């Protein structure tokens, strides 16, 4: 089976400048500064699956999601979508391709034009891609509103007249309008109230079941990721450090960073909280401008050994379908605890 979306050695670097003769002469940065947001990521997303993408701020998860849609230009590597090399497409074919790949954003209000009505917002993709006209377009908008649970009465209202949860529903309706195969949902619930999060998760899952959608679900919320995803990828400083079936990654994580991440998530059960052991990492995530050599996690890893500072670990299959990037574990020795300090 070929994947719906594939990334190969994908790289997105942002050049902050510096290091030129001019900047050295004028007291600017002496060295060229490059943010390595996404730094060599390869992954496949199968048709109909949800791949969860988790990581802390600055790890590159949003940039990766945008690079898959070519909303940011990759500096190296390749993205294929339905066997088409998206990274090589000319502007017009790329525009047409976007019909099949859409995005749901974190901040629902910021992602909606405040001067457009719901009808105009949801109809825009139909117009852009020439999918429906006149009466038909109007009917499609009403149908899309019904699908995401918005009353038809609101069709001529403006975004500010809605609550956060309803605004997110508008964003979802817009993403669905062009009948895409693939949707990147970038932190779709993190700006919402707790009681609204479940509504949006359920809506996203129901749409997948009804329409066979494929998702990249980006979130820092491991509880939501675990619930929504078939597989989970964990990012740290521009790299995927662990990827595998959602239950395996969230319940029996392999890589020390994932283990710390999982242990840091508060569990809404006082009995569990009282007896669990927490791995509290020291220090902060280093800057992606000058990521550490070797394993990028070595500066915070409790299990670090000398070799970790030199060897950049590759993803290896530790358990069936479950890959991790750590030189201290292997299929024969999957448990970092047993590997010792």
């Amino acid at each position, binding site marked *: 089976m070929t994947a719906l979306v594939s990334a190969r050695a994908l790289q997105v670097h942002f050049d902050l400048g510096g290091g030129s003769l001019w900047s050295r002469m004028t007291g600017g940065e002496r060295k060229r500064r490059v943010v390595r947001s996404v730094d060599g990521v390869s992954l496949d997303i199968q048709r109909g699956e949800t791949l969860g993408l988790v990581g802390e*701020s600055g790890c590159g998860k949003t940039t990766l999601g945008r690079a898959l849609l070519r909303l940011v230009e990759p500096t190296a590597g390749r993205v294929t979508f339905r066997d088409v090399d998206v990274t090589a497409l000319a502007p017009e074919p790329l525009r047409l391709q976007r019909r099949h790949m859409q995005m749901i954003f974190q901040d629902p209000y910021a992602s909606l034009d405040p001067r457009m009505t719901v009808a105009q917002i949801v109809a825009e993709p139909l117009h852009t891609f020439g999918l429906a006209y006149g009466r038909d377009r109007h009917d499609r908008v009403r149908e899309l509103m019904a699908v995401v649970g918005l009353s038809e009465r609101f069709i001529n209202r403006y975004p500010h007249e809605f609550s956060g949860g309803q605004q997110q529903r508008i964003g979802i309706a817009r993403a669905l309008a062009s009948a895409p195969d693939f949707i990147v949902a970038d932190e779709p619930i993190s700006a919402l*109230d*707790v009681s609204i999060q479940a509504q949006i998760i*359920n809506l996203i899952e129901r749409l997948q079941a009804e329409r066979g959608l494929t998702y990249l679900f980006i979130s820092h919320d491991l509880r939501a990721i675990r619930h929504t995803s078939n597989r989970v990828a964990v990012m740290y400083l521009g790299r995927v450090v662990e990827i595998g079936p959602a239950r395996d990654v969230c319940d029996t994580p392999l890589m020390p960073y994932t283990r710390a*991440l999982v242990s*840091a*998530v*508060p569990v809404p059960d006082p009995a569990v909280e009282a007896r669990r052991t927490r791995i509290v990492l020291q220090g902060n*995530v280093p800057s992606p401008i000058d990521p550490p050599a070797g394993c990028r996690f070595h500066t915070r890893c409790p299990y670090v050994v000398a070799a970790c500072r030199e060897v950049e670990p590759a993803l290896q299959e530790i358990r069936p379908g479950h890959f991790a990037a750590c030189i201290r574990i292997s299929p024969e020795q999957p448990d970092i605890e047993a590997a010792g300090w």
Partner: protein
Amino acid sequence: MTPLLSVRDLRTWFDEEGRTVKAVDGVGFDVQRGETLGIVGESGSGKSVTSLSIMRLVPSPPGRIVSGQILFDGQELLGLDDESMRRIRGHRVAMIFQDPMTSLNPFMRISAQIEEVTRLHLRHSKAEARAHAIAMLERVGIPDAHRRADDYPHQFSGGMRQRVMIAIALACGPDLVIADEPTTALDVTIQAQILELIRASRAATGSAVVLITHDLGIVAGMTDRVVVMYAGKVFETAATPELFARPGNPYTHGLLRSVPNPAAERGVPLYQIPGSPPDVAHLPPGCSFAPRCSRATSLCREQFPPFVELAPGHHSLCHFAHDVYAGGDA
């Protein structure tokens, strides 16, 4: 034993555009010495306004504390003149805010912001204050505190800034620390560091903590008792284990069930509370939660519910509190 803090029938209203927003409307709870009380609620529930009222930091106008009692260590805070209140605030009751960037002064060196507090409240000399500031920074885990003390807030990461906030809050050894969403702006692994720091400081100093959060996981791991707020009112209060095991209010029950948990199967929808948190300026008559409650009857829509005692220390604002408590599913 008399509680350290006792809030009774607190009403904090805001006058906005000719209408009255009853942000906090009849809130009451106690905080015992050394105890950690969690206040949970969604946006607009009044949890932050409650804490600002205790600190007497509600911006006025448009806000005003209409009625109520806030007894701190036997002393009524609401009647205090500004000077007496200043002696308590930052000294015996301290606060940690959600966003350390906006609550630290960007133009002041870190140590100066700690020294300011102890010179005022503890009458420290310049040298004492300086030494104490560095000791506090070390205590909250700022590496190389001697050197970092002279840095400005923007030179610190988000997690480190929150540590500085905690150092300021703990500088005078307060009896009560109010932490309003102290980790919401932080990443998960940094959140774990800060929660661990709050746990450790609490154990070391024995101070009581009021922890305001929307995260039920944090409530479960950090608190002894919980107050659940909705639309400016206390909907339920109980000891933390009891609240999670046997909620007595349909709102609490729904919230607990809507969080993804390890037992939930993928593909099986999460429990969801319909609708959105209400606009407190336009509350329905009767129970504010009735429009979203699956068990609401005409009684709920017409009559304001009673605050029912279900067990010692366990209260719920609901006409059907006993049924919910007995496990009658919502």
